[in-house]
């Protein structure tokens, strides 16, 4: 390959190092073509066969950029989230049996083809063009956009004696149809499944929220729906089981293992492997093999996009801090995604410390976990010395997951996001506090994020804008809370 340098220092030696460049970045990655400079190099498309100084200098720069990113990687705008293999740094990926590889690839290309399809696009068109399929459904069926609510009494509660304190805003995902953020993803995925011509939908569920959301969208679009649920969970959540059946879904109990969420997930994956041609698997969170973490994040990112616009309307700026609870991590990614590149916005995820980090009964994956592969992705997870998955515990079923989305593992390692945890007791107190102060009963999952405000707010300067994702309503948790709070 002959690349002649004309006006720039582009030694041939460098160009031959093209062979040692990392795998090509496909169009599905989040690198824009502008960053790769290929778009700007008007004269050519393929560096190997073309002559021209522009190519060599871009190659050089690109090579330099690539090698330097490994050393100084602090600009979030340069991270590939994910890259073409679905990796976020070393996390993520596609650790699945061969039979599923084709389905995942098919899913990824379908998603990419609709991502930029104006008829499919989400939040931007949510308000302006009701014609957009997804936007229309999100608006009229789900009830978007959800408000950014100034929590006056909660703000007063955290005001210090000298009158200073942060301003607390709640992003009201609890007002969505079905009462949680889960439906944003369920709707997006079912529309995708329809485009792929799939007639059968499967999903796993722990407490039932994701199951109910999936059953809801399947009813709305007339698709067959099978939900896998651990037998133990089915007993604890019989009302959710009834609800799913009412919505026309078939609920299959899973008795293997500990008969809880992780076993239901494994069973669902097994079903998918068997029926991959006819079936789409609606994964409930940003976990799982690529392209799920990316897809689920994209479907939820409407939360953050709306927040940006609403923050601008309300106080003419951006939030200073975003707080969200982290189980699998979908509601947090949904809020964070639009702000990852804004380095002046702090991202805080709050996990479940259950009965305490030392008790061994918790779900604080990012704090106490180790890196391993679970459900198709490399990520932090709670495992024992033999590499067996530890049964997590949290009073809130939605955070009761022994893994976490790979992108959260990535953001933690990069230091872009901070992760803390909160015990069952602290979460219950927050549940009660917010109910009494704002008349909003938050889900127990959300209560973990709300509980963290107790530690966070005293450290914040006056008038810091905190936006907390109120990811779901707590009607489903009332019985549990009453039992523990003895209200």
């Amino acid at each position: 390959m002959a690349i002649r340098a004309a006006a720039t220092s582009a030694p041939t030696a460098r160009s031959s190092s093209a062979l040692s460049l990392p795998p090509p970045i496909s169009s599905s990655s989040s690198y824009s073509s502008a960053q790769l400079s290929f778009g700007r190099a008007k004269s050519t498309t393929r560096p190997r066969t073309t002559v021209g100084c522009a190519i060599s200098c871009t190659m050089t720069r690109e090579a330099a950029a690539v090698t330097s990113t490994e050393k100084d990687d602090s600009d979030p705008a340069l991270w590939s989230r994910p890259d073409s293999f679905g990796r976020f740094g070393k996390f993520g990926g596609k650790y699945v049996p061969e039979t599923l590889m084709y389905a995942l690839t098919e899913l990824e290309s379908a998603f990419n083809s609709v991502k930029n399809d104006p008829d499919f696009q989400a939040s931007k068109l949510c308000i302006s063009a009701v014609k957009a399929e997804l936007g229309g459904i999100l608006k009229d069926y789900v009830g978007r956009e959800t408000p950014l609510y100034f929590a006056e009494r909660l703000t007063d509660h955290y005001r210090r004696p000298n009158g200073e304190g942060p301003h607390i805003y709640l992003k009201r995902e609890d007002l969505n149809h079905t009462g949680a953020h889960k439906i944003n993803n369920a709707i997006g995925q079912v529309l995708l499944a329809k485009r792929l011509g799939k007639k059968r939908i499967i999903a796993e569920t722990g407490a039932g929220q994701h199951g109910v959301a999936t059953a809801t969208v399947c009813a709305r679009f007339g698709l067959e729906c099978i939900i896998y649920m651990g037998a133990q969970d089915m007993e604890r959540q019989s009302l959710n089981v009834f609800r799913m059946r009412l919505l026309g879904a078939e609920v299959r109990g899973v008795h293997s293992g500990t008969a809880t969420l992780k076993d239901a997930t494994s069973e669902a994956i097994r079903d998918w492997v068997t029926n991959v041609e006819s079936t789409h698997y609606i994964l409930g969170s940003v976990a799982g093999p690529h392209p799920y973490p990316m897809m689920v994040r994209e479907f939820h990112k409407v939360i953050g996009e709306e927040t940006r616009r609403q923050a601008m309307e309300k106080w003419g700026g951006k939030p200073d801090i975003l707080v969200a609870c982290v189980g699998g991590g979908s509601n947090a990614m949904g809020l964070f995604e639009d702000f990852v590149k804004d380095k002046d916005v702090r991202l805080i995820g709050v996990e479940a410390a259950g009965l305490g980090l030392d008790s061994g009964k918790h779900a604080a994956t990012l704090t106490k976990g180790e890196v391993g592969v679970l459900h198709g992705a490399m990520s932090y997870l709670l495992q024992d010395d033999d590499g067996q998955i530890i049964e997590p515990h949290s009073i809130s079923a939605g955070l009761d997951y022994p893994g976490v989305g790979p992108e959260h593992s990535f953001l933690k390692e990069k230091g872009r996001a901070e992760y803390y945890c909160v015990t069952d007791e602290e979460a219950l107190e927050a549940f009660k506090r917010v109910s009494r102060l704002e008349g909003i009963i938050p889900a127990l999952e959300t209560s973990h994020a709300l509980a963290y405000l107790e530690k966070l707010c005293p450290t914040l300067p006056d008038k810091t804008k905190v936006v907390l994702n109120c990811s779901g309503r707590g009607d489903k948790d009332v019985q549990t809370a009453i039992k523990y709070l003895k209200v």
Partner: protein
Amino acid sequence: MNYACKTHHSAMKSHFTHFRTIAGHRNHYPQVVCANPVVFEGNGRATRSKFDSSALRLNYKPGSPTTELPKGRVAILVDDDAAKPPSTGKFGRFGGKFVPETLISCLEELEVVFRQALRDPQFQEELTTALKDYVGRETPLYYAERLTAHYKAQNMGRGPDIYIKREDLTHCGAHKMNNALAQAMIAKRMGLTAVVAATGAGQHGVATAAACAKLGLSCTVFMSTADMEKQPSNVDLMNLLGAKVEPTAGSFKDASSESIRVWAGQLGEVYYLAGTAVGPHPCPTMVREFQSVIGRETRRQAAEKWGGTPDAVVACVGSGSNALGIFHEFVSDPTVRLIGVEAAGFGLDSGKHAATLAAGEVGVYHGAMSYLLQDEEGHIVRPHSVGVGLEYPGVAPELSFLKESGRMEFCSATDKEAVEAYRRVARLEGIIPALEASHAFAYLEKLCPTLPDGAKIVVSCSGRGDKDAAMVSTYMSR
């Protein structure tokens, strides 16, 4: 008030002068007062201080009347000049203020505050923001594609287009919040720190508890023990929200009477938050005004979606607040059919129902003249419906008026039809409607075959049905 007046007004008028003198209260407008004020047993003793309006300690700042409300307000139309004396609150022959003298001045002051609040741009601004950011308005007008297809398929591909007004998406899951929040703001405006309310199914109790928590008011909700057993989840919600739930014997009507009793005994300290468009004036008007945001939004959304108005609006009728909320905007528009669906329980002939407009007679109940379910002796009949929120033996006086004037059509659906509709809408649209709203959906079975192709129906989905899952599960297993 737990009696029903079947006697004629002329008999009552003979006592009119007597009451006026005793009260020493300025009454320069006709007012009918019932002859036997044995209403609040053991409470509400008339003392001098109760008639002295300064004892009410109203701390609000009267707003200056404005001629127009700024754009984007959840504008509430006022049809009366604030300078006029308090009105009688009559809708034709219905409505009014059938209350003991102790409550009259209180109700008058409430009306004045209400009118002034409506004209105060600051109040409007706060209410609009709260409805938007806290309650989650505006609620969508959702085209129910599969429900529409379902009815068209039954009629050779021809049938109406069905739109659902999604009040189930409001905070706390029912339209009750629109009213509870606005009235709690009125209470705060009056400088009161305590609120009392009565609830049947619990939705109004929950909404009131939430609104009071948000505004920092103390809240007491009266609920009958029978209802508490039927809807325990709502009781838990109220407790969590910081409200005190006081059990009463009997049913909703008794809880209602008890709360009015407490109010009468603590006038000037406590605000009575009416949950629905019944009761003495100005309660029906206030509740209707605050709920009428539903109809206003519907009109605008209908214009956006199909460039016209609905051909028919269908809503369930218990006491009538959600129905009035969506009907009111269209009352003066004769091209829009207004259809109210009541609870026929086990059937109109069974005697176990709550179909007040269909099977009731006119009388006075809870301070207003309206249709109500009473037996031969004028005692209130205990109503029944699987939709607990529809179990009210009376109905809003304004709806009685709309019925008599022929403006509104009314019909009913049995428990069985309602449960079927609950399941149908869940299965076809993934929306679980409240059992109350399911009555409105049930009526579509009869309505749709009669309508021309492409007619636009708007059904008010007044609440979500998660609270009813246990009840439906039991019903289905029977």
